[in-house]
């Protein structure tokens, strides 16, 4: 099984099982970690903002145009920022590390 590593806002790392076809947001949410994902995953808010570990950035790819626009509503946006609802899980992402961005 593929693994997703999520660091929460307290700095604790959680090892989650990857689910092919789910988004990273859904994997995080279904494991009851604190992710708001207010719009439910349609790229219409910025409350599933995560930082992708640089090692995994190439595999995850660049944010799309809609996603870049929504990231304008996030704070402390970095080069590694992504909206986790827009990252579809594949086994190829096994070992991906993300950190939950601050809430506001």
């Amino acid at each position: 099984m593929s693994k997703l590593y999520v660091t929460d806002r307290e700095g604790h790392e959680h090892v989650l099982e990857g689910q092919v076809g789910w988004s990273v947001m859904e994997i995080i949410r279904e494991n009851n970690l604190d992710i708001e994902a207010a719009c439910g995953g349609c790229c219409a808010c910025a409350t599933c903002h995560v930082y992708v570990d640089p090692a995994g950035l190439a595999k995850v790819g660049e944010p799309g145009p809609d996603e870049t626009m929504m990231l304008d509503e996030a704070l402390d946006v970095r080069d590694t920022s992504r909206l986790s609802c827009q990252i579809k899980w594949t086994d190829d992402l096994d070992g991906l590390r993300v950190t939950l961005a601050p809430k506001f």
Partner: protein
Amino acid sequence: MSAAPIATDMIIIGAGPVGLFAVFEAGLLGIRCHLIDNLDKVGGQCAELYPDKPIYDIPAVPRCTGQELVDRLVEQCAPFEPVFHLNQQAQALTHLPDGRWRVSTTADLVLEAPVVVIAAGAGSFVPKRLPLPGAEAYEGRSLFYAVRRMEQFRGRRIVVAGGGDSALDWVLNLQPIAASMALVHRRDDFRAAPDSVAKMRRLVAEGAISLVIGQISALEGADGRLEGVVVRSPQGETRLAADTLLAFYGLKMELGPIADWGLNLHENLIAVDTEAFETNAPGIFAIGDICTYPGKLKLILSGFHEAALMCQKAFKICFPDQKLIFRYTTSSTDLQKKLGVA
């Protein structure tokens, strides 16, 4: 409390799809409704978050956008003449000695009715606040998330943060009366209307506005009086002298004052029974995404169902002496008259 209380049958908190459909179901039973919403428009999340995105799971509507769904619901409930009170949040709930409920809003409106329906979705939309340490101390004095009176900002040294229409509109409107105006945005690309962006760029070229690309990383000042804003970018830090910061990072949803109304809550959701979707307080109902019960699904269609069943019980509370007859809109001329089609 400035004006006299408005008396009605049903106060609906939240003018999203479920609140709008509740107006329809209530209207068929002769129940009049007033609605309260903190947005400046009806439609809730459908109108604010995804007006142009498609919805495929509304029964008998294979595909529509969020805004189309709202427009159709408004049309459907129009015969019942709902009264909308927008741009205000339901603030306090009081039980009156005669058994009715009083709801007051942040705009000092007072409504009284035997039934209150909370159809507030994930809460009311409020501006996202700057999460920087110490930012709170500046709020209301130097840091603002909305402009209520433009004159308040005459002669001020203003920094506006954001890249959407609110940010650009206020940059353009306030620039003529401000002592200085700077716009801060994280990238040199704006999702605001192209016309506003063009105007802003002209003023930047003329030197009337400074455009700073980066993100606000710190506020400087003391005792709620802002003196400067620090902007971080890959090129380093810039300090902008300013006494006023207007931050437009969009809206977020929060439960707000409802959390303190003494209702049974489970993780910010209101617990209801599945016969009438009534809360632990008699006469207070919760429908749509904000309610919870075993098996609850946060679907718009579930909210519609909840609205219909809720109204059965609401009718008994509103009109205790009347008998409720179950009828179909297809065959009942009485219902068709209410709808204005017979």
